[in-house]
């Protein structure tokens, strides 16, 4: 039975991962534990003793932080997998060129790549939610649904960075993206504190960042509270980034690999 080309690309990623999984699996487990310990419990005890509880709507800092961190981790995973590996496939090891000499086409390659990122994001997010539960930062089993906005957010960033990495001629643009894009978003999109704490002129900027939408959804699902905007707006916004990023990636991949 013939398997669609997209699935064969995902399978190839899985075969490569079989060789390289150790480092990434270890950090998948350790980084949530370290962050939740340091920020959630360490810093959290200060916040909870002060005026924090009132500003967070009665939540403990750990409970507030954990869903945000979940989605922010998904963002970093998605953006990371969409950056250097894509540049390597096009420019360094050039394995994408080899793939495209087979029946696999550009669209299969892009969608298969994002499909594999989705597999990774699911794994990373499920592990993260399990660790959140171990820390007592999830209200009920229903909190596990927070994996979905994490996946959507990770894919939104991965699609966009994939398109961007294929557009670039060298990797200095990627370092810039992380330094001046991903890191500020990580810090100021409602992960560590509500965006209402931002200066008024900055708040609309946070509304544009996909991470904020994902954090809103995840926090709502993990804690059973309502989102700032209607949930379908948040979901729609993330989906728009995924679809838009994928379409732009088709274009930038074609320009680099099919000329």
């Amino acid at each position: 039975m013939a398997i669609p080309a997209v699935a064969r690309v995902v399978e190839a990623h899985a075969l490569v991962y079989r060789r390289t999984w150790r480092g990434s699996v270890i950090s998948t487990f350790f980084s949530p534990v370290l962050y939740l310990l340091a920020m959630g419990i360490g810093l959290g005890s200060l916040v909870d003793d002060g005026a924090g509880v009132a500003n967070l709507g009665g939540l403990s800092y750990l409970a507030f932080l954990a869903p945000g961190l979940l989605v922010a981790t998904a963002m970093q995973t998605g953006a990371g997998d969409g950056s250097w590996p894509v540049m390597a496939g096009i420019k360094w090891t050039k394995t994408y060129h080899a793939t495209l000499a087979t029946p696999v086409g550009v669209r299969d390659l892009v969608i298969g790549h994002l499909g594999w990122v989705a597999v990774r994001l699911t794994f990373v997010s499920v592990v993260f939610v399990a660790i959140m539960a171990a820390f007592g930062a999830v209200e009920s089993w229903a909190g596990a649904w927070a994996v979905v906005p994490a996946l959507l957010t990770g894919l939104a960033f991965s699609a966009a960075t994939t398109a961007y990495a294929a557009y670039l001629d060298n990797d200095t643009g990627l370092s810039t993206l992380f330094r001046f894009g991903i890191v500020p978003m990580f810090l100021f999109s409602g992960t560590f504190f509500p965006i209402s704490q931002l200066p008024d002129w900055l708040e609309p900027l946070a509304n544009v960042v996909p991470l904020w939408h994902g954090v809103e959804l995840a926090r709502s699902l993990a804690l059973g509270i309502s989102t700032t905007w209607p949930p379908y707006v948040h979901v729609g916004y993330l989906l728009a980034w995924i679809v838009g990023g994928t379409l732009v990636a088709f274009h930038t991949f074609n320009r680099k690999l099919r000329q």
Partner: protein
Amino acid sequence: MSLVEARSLTKKFGDLTAVDAIDFDVAPGESFGFLGPNGAGKTSAMRMIGAVSPITDGSLRVLGMNPAVDGPEIRMRLGVVPQDDTLDTELSVAENLLIYGRYFDLPRPVIRERITELLDFAQLSERRDDKVEPLSGGMKRRLTIARALINQPELLILDEPTTGLDPQARHVLWDRLYRLKQQGVTLIITTHYMDEAEQLCDRLVIMDKGKIVAEGSPRRLIEEHSTREVLEMRFPVGVQEAILDRLDGLAKRTEVLPDRVLLYTDNGDEAAAEATARGLRPESVVVRRSTLEDVFLRLTGRTLVD
């Protein structure tokens, strides 16, 4: 029926015309070459044949199909050896072949069988489970060829297969390609080495600046465009310019290169003796047979490898 049929095939990148309205046919079982210097348009032609790069103008049929419409079907039956090895260096030798086989949707048991055969063919059986990274250039090249054969292609296209390899590795590779040719695999090869073209190609086109300047078997091209022998003379620095007028009538044709003078004649020894009789004292004298390099020089006024 031709496996590849190109008519006025053209490729443009903006204002640059990389391939300029070329015509050629490749017959089943033959080994066909594109010979030309870097930038002649060989790689662009190969990428169009490989159904990865769209044609700008003219027409192209590969395996009887249209690359613009039937890209995946064509690529299913092609083997491609690109100029860069494009191997996954983090994976083992066998894993590289496995992944590639899966792109062609071959069942794993079939791939496993072929990996054993192909690694034997590529003389890499002992390196089966080693990582690709530390392999030598020649080994990586042979692995790339083995990978291109995983789908048992009817047509194998090789872009500069031995560029960057040492002489010994080149001969091993030529031997492998010769075996493929004997098995009936159709080969299309680009090269800027005239010895490679002479060794491997039944028929070739000489390309320069996007155009085909000559076409035929290596032997016929040499017969048509050059003499049987060539007398090469090297003079001390500064002397060459001074003696040029004393070469008149020594040979059918004279080519003056920056570092030596080439005299085209059917009898090199006779011409050398005559030069000595005229009082010429070159630093070195070589009489050799004409090669495709001479054909290229004749047709374009330039050497193949600068």
